[in-house]
């Protein structure tokens, strides 16, 4: 089974092609370019370099959130266009689960974190053992302090932060949770290549949907909601 995986959920963009569990090729850029201009040419060049014509693909995977409003839409639009043209099934991936896959060799807790601004993060928590992820916390939007409380409930386990909010959290925890580290730069951001086995597992498990069922995964930020407007205005 051949899959194309695309991610443009944050500042980096990447594409990967895999055949079953085998990664045939990947492409990654984090140069601050507009995804609308780079993602499709990147996918085309990658397919060409892997000698996989579009017609040989069996399914298309894409990260559907959380992430940047514009970035997610660019990735989903690209996948929808290809899926509709070729009548291919689509596999929606959680950006956070996909991020956790960067560290599949790690034994301990993997905590993906994306900066949602205003001291909030999109996060989740996984335990990784022998290359297998077990989910401990659902994708959610919480404050950095709440994330610290979550991590503090696992004092004895090794924990690693990954994602564009990793350093932000690591540096803003007032007392640092024990046994905590941050992923190195080359593993810090989303990589479609790392998501290949996840996408393949989901495809085999029949977790695919049609192109029009690909929708962004929204996570509300309840705390930010309360504090959005300038207080003065409230009395109006």
């Amino acid at each position: 089974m051949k899959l194309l995986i695309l991610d443009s959920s944050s500042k980096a963009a990447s594409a990967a092609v895999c055949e079953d569990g085998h990664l045939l090729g990947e492409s990654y850029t984090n140069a601050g370019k507009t995804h609308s201009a780079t993602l499709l040419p990147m996918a085309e060049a990658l397919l060409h370099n892997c000698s996989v014509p579009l017609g040989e693909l069996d399914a298309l995977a894409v990260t559907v959130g959380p992430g940047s409003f514009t970035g997610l839409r660019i990735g989903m639009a690209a996948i929808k266009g290809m899926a509709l043209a070729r009548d291919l099934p689509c596999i929606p991936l959680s950006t956070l689960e996909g991020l956790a896959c960067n560290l599949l060799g790690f034994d301990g807790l993997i905590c993906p974190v994306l900066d949602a601004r205003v001291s909030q993060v999109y996060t989740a928590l996984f335990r990784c053992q022998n290359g297998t992820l077990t989910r401990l916390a659902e994708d959610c939007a919480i404050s950095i302090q709440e994330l610290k409380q979550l991590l503090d409930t696992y004092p004895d386990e090794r924990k690693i932060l990954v994602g564009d909010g990793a350093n932000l959290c690591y540096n803003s925890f007032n007392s640092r949770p024990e046994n905590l580290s941050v992923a190195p730069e080359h593993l810090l951001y989303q990589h479609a290549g790392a998501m290949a086995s996840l996408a393949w597992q989901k495809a085999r498990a029949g977790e695919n949907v049609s192109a029009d069922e690909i929708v962004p995964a929204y996570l509300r930020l309840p705390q930010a909601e309360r504090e959005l407007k300038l207080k003065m205005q409230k009395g109006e």
Partner: protein
Amino acid sequence: MQRFITSSAAETEQLASRLAQTLQAGDIIAFVGGMGMGKTCFTHGLAAGLGIDPGEVSSPTFALVNEYRGGRLPLFHFDMYRVESFDGLYSTGFFDYLDMGGVVAVEWSENIHGALPQEVIRVTFERLGDTQRRIAIEGRVLP
């Protein structure tokens, strides 16, 4: 904080053009002040100061954001008048624009106060008369 008094729309535009000379990629200008104070007028001056055709500038009340290019830096012009919630703000793409290497100017920034970074340039308008405005600029010093 610096305070200025302008006596016409043209003077407000000139003041904005002076501010434009100091702008760098990533700067955010948050306007504070009610209806008809001169925020769109000020944005005309910012565009002119950045070398953008000010004729391109129009109020983004319905579009939520207008993009002006062709100058020293791109200018992203938001109107948050209709933004009611954090989700609504996220859906304008506001957070994506902060990383796009341009200048972001925000009308009705009162509505997204809690989502603004600390280091904004705040421009506050006060009406002194039909054609007079007191304009306070915080977070950037005009030469």
